[in-house]
Structures are given as C-alpha cells and as structure tokens.
C-alpha cells in the first residue's frame, strides 16, 4: 500500500523540479538565517541566486555532525524559538548532545513520512500500533507515534522495557503492528515463546530500525512472529526515522526524495560516486524549516538505486546501511562513540586513559564492556577503592549513554597499542 501516491510515485522529471525548487528555497533560507551557512557560502563564493540546477549542489560545502555540536544548542536554527514546537537530542561525540528543533510544519512533514512507512508495512486506521521505541529525546518513539496517529491507527505508546508486560498488552490489546529495534523484537519473540503466548498474538507487520540488522535476522523475525518485517532508516539531524523505509518488495529503502536530496560520495575525496556504487550517504533537506542542513555527511555507508521499484514508487532506494566511515557503534539502538567513553575516563582520572570497548551479542541483547588499564594514579591496595572506581566509571558512562555497561580493570599494556590510530573497539557481534 502507498500512503501518498502523488508524491511517492511521482515521475522523476517532476520530482527533479520539486527538488530544485526546494533546494533553491533552502539555500536562500540558510544564507539569510544561519550565520554558519552564510559564512561558508560566502567563502565558497556561492550566492543563493547562482543555484540554477540540481548539479549546483555539488559545489556546496558539506555539513558535519561537529557543526551541530559547535553551534550547540540552537546556533543552526533558521527560525526563532517561538516557531519551534519540539526539541529532540542525541548524545554527541564527546558528551555534548546534538540538538534538533522542529516547527509545526516540520512535525507535519515527519508525521507524513512515518505515515508512508507505516502504510508501506500495511498499516491502516484499523490497526493497533505497538510502539516499543523509546519515548523522550530520542526521535524513535515520537516519530512512530505521530505517523501512526496520522494514519489513524490506534497507538500504544508503551516505550521500551518491562518485556513480559509488553507481551501481555500485545495479547490483550490485539497489537497488529510492532515498532521497535530489531534486537528488541527478537527478545520479545523469545519471551512470547517462553510465556507460551506467541500464537495468541495478532501481529502482522513490524517496523524495525535504529540499529544494523541482517536479512537472516529478518527471516528469523518474520518466521517467529509470523509478520512482514521492514527496515526503516533515519537520523535526527535530517528529521528522525522515516528518511527512508522499505516496501514489501524488500529491495532497498525508499528515500523521501521530495523532502531530501540524496548523494553518495567517496568518504575520502568527497566526490560523488556513480549510482549503485557504495559510498557515504549525504542528505540535503529541501523542505525543513527549523534546521535545514546542506549536504549533511551521515557517515553511513550505503548505495543508491534510482530505478523505479516494482511496488510503483519512483523514489530512489538505498541499500541497508552496511557500515560507518567513523567509529560510531550502535548498541541497543543507542549511538556510541568511543570518544564519549574516553571523555568519561579523562574526567575521572585526569589523563588520557588506555581503554578498550568490547561489544558482543548475548542471546538477542547487545552488551558492552569497557576495559580500563589500571595505572598508579588510581591503583590502591584496598579492594573497595578499586571497586568504587569501577562503579564510578560505570555510573558516569551509563548516565551519559543511557545503556548499561560492564567495567573491568585490566593490567597495564594488556590493551593493544598501535602506531597510528589506537584500536578502541572489538565488536564481536555477528549481525
């Protein structure tokens, strides 16, 4: 099913006109309203009037995640606060969060994109959407919520946690669409099986995202829960979940190109790569009001296919994200940068720490262990002092990232040193 055929199946020639108009408006908007962009465009010798075709996009400078951090909290906003109706934030690379704002129109756009996603999964006003994405500063929960309301479905805003209760509610309320991270869906399936309630569930589809997963995991979920499982992609810097979503053909995620222009670049040179080739995803928003971004480098690796899809949509499809160009980890749906762990250790111990992050998947849950080398500054002959140190590191990391972590002290020089960039992560997950 298609929510908005006029837009999702628009002839590509027409789409290009929509994109050019949106691009020109956006460049004008940021030039006039966002000092950082005015400066960058002036430096590059580009005036808003000189944007005549979509090819001119290539001449524009990139926007990085650090730009959002450097302009913390509201420096990239293109509207006054009185027009902002919502704020979301994700944890930043070194402790400071990345803040994004939405105008009423932005929220409406986001709801539209999520309505497209839900409809693509088969949701109608007759459905009961079980929304186990986290509600709060994270965009997952409220994103699905508004989309489900737009479709007219009944939303259960259950958020994460308390898994047995989730299963009971799914059974009692007759949930038909499940929205959560794929690893949590696996866990729900497991618990439902243990409770002997799996056959009582009415689920028909699941919308799973916010962390990497594989086709074999999809097949497993589809079989165990008897559902259609589709992938969803998004990032708060662009709008949140719903930037791209799968159709039941499962041959890539349709990008909402009437709101975002996609490019794939070589992460080293910054040059575009030919369609179908792998590279870094770059998005330019063309309808966003509160915080438009020009050529935002996502660090996500994918490839884009511009051929029309057999589902009828003409929107380009991106491959499932296969990796990152930076060292960001996604653990239980939470973005984790090694530099965040490092900043916590620096703060506690005062010097550059030697540490290693070990990620594994036990059952269906991601677990993270941080190994810290003991040094003479905090080593003590008393066990309780070392245990207090461990607890403090654990507490600080958990309060920063909101996921549980196991901290382990190790002997000096046990963590591998390297000449260039230190290896900080061992990811043993098989996804």
């Amino acid at each position, binding site marked *: 099913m298609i929510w908005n055929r006029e837009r999702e199946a628009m002839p590509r020639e027409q789409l290009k006109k929509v994109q050019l108009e949106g691009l020109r408006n956006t460049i004008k908007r940021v030039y006039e309203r966002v000092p950082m962009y005015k400066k960058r465009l002036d430096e590059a010798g580009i005036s808003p009037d000189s944007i005549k075709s979509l090819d001119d996009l290539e001449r524009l400078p990139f926007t990085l995640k650090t730009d959002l951090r450097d302009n913390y909290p509201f420096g990239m906003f293109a509207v006054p606060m009185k027009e902002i109706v919502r704020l979301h934030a994700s944890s930043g690379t070194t402790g400071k969060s990345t803040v994004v704002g939405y105008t009423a129109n932005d929220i409406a756009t986001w709801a539209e994109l999520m309505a497209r996603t839900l409809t693509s999964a088969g949701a109608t006003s007759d459905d009961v959407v079980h929304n186990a994405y986290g509600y709060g500063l994270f965009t997952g929960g409220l994103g699905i919520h508004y989309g489900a309301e737009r479709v007219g479905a009944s939303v259960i805003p259950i958020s994460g946690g308390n898994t047995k209760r989730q299963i009971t509610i799914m059974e009692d309320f007759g949930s038909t669409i499940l929205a959560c991270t794929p690893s949590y869906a696996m866990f729900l399936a497991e618990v439902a099986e243990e409770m002997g309630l799996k056959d009582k569930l009415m689920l028909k589809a699941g919308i799973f995202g916010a962390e990497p997963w594989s086709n074999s995991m999809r097949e497993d979920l589809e079989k165990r829960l008897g559902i259609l499982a589709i992938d969803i992609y998004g990032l708060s810097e662009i709008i949140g979940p719903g930037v791209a979503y799968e159709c039941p053909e499962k041959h890539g995620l349709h990008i909402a190109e009437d709101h975002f222009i996609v490019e794939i670049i070589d992460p080293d040179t910054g040059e575009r790569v030919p369609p179908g080739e792998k590279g870094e995803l770059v998005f330019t928003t063309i309808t966003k009001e509160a915080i438009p971004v020009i050529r935002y480098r996502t660090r996500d690796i994918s490839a884009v296919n511009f051929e029309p899809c057999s589902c009828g949509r003409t929107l380009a499809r991106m491959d499932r994200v296969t990796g990152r160009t930076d060292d960001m980890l996604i653990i239980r749906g939470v973005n984790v940068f090694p530099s965040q762990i490092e900043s916590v250790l620096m703060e506690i111990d005062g010097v550059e720490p030697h540490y290693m992050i070990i990620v594994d998947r036990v059952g269906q849950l991601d677990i993270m262990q941080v190994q810290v080398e*003991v*040094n*003479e500054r905090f*080593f*003590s*002959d*008393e*066990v309780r002092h*070392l*245990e207090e140190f461990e607890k403090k590191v654990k507490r600080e990391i958990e309060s920063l990232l909101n996921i549980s972590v196991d901290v*382990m*002290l*190790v*002997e*000096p*020089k*046990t963590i591998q040193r390297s000449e260039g960039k230190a290896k900080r992560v061992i990811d043993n997950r098989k996804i």
Partner: protein
Amino acid sequence: MRAIQVSVFLENKRGRLAEVTKILGENSINIRTFFIADTSDFGILRMIVNDTKKAMDILKSNDFTVRENEVIAVEVSDKPGGLANILNILNSNDLNIEYLYCFADTNRHKAIDVMRVEDIERAIDVLQNAQVKLLDEIALSNL
C-alpha cells in the same frame, strides 16, 4: 616504626601470580609474606619483601601496576591469644583495621602480624604505649 608493603594489581587470569613470583625470584627478592585480596575480576597481591625499592623497580619495569603502602608489623609470641591481645588494644582505642595478615617466625617462636589501619600514626602510638614490639622495614628484611 613503619613497615612498607608492596601491592601489585593482578588480573584474574592464569599465570599472573606465577609471573610476579618468577620475576622476583630471578632478581633475588625474597617474599617474607603475602596475601591476595580478590574479586571476580581482579586481585591485589600485597606482600612484604626483603628489598622494597628493588621489588618496586623491577615490577614497574615489567609493566605491573604497583604501589607502596605504610603498614604496621607487630611481633607477638607464637602462642594462643597473641593476636587477640593486639586486636583488643586497637579495638579499645577505636582503631579500625582495613586488613591484616600474618606469618610465623618458627625459629624464634614468634608470629608477625602485618596490618593496614586507618590512622597509622595513632595506632603506632597506642601499640608502643602498650609495650608491643613493632618491626620496621629494616627489622623485617633482617628476619
């Protein structure tokens, strides 16, 4: 009248204690006594050796995390009630012991109790006033 204890951080994995003792042995350092405090992840080896400075240097150069601490070494008769008497003195003066370990000097029929206390200055005063014999670093290395 203070004694010096050397503490070494050890991960809970096979062969670590053997490694420490081998290094000390190869460098002619004699361990008078030792005690390991352990958790599920790690252990702290605490020991009295005959040459503290040399032991510290050698362990550091072998990438161990080490630390020196002042402790009290008390010599008592190696017979029932020897330790109880000491603990009673400390207790009646409200002095807390963090940890304690002992060894016997069988030739002289003495027992030596090594203790880490919260307030080492006062503990030394109190014990000396009670005519308890304390051993310092030199006395320990000459045992």
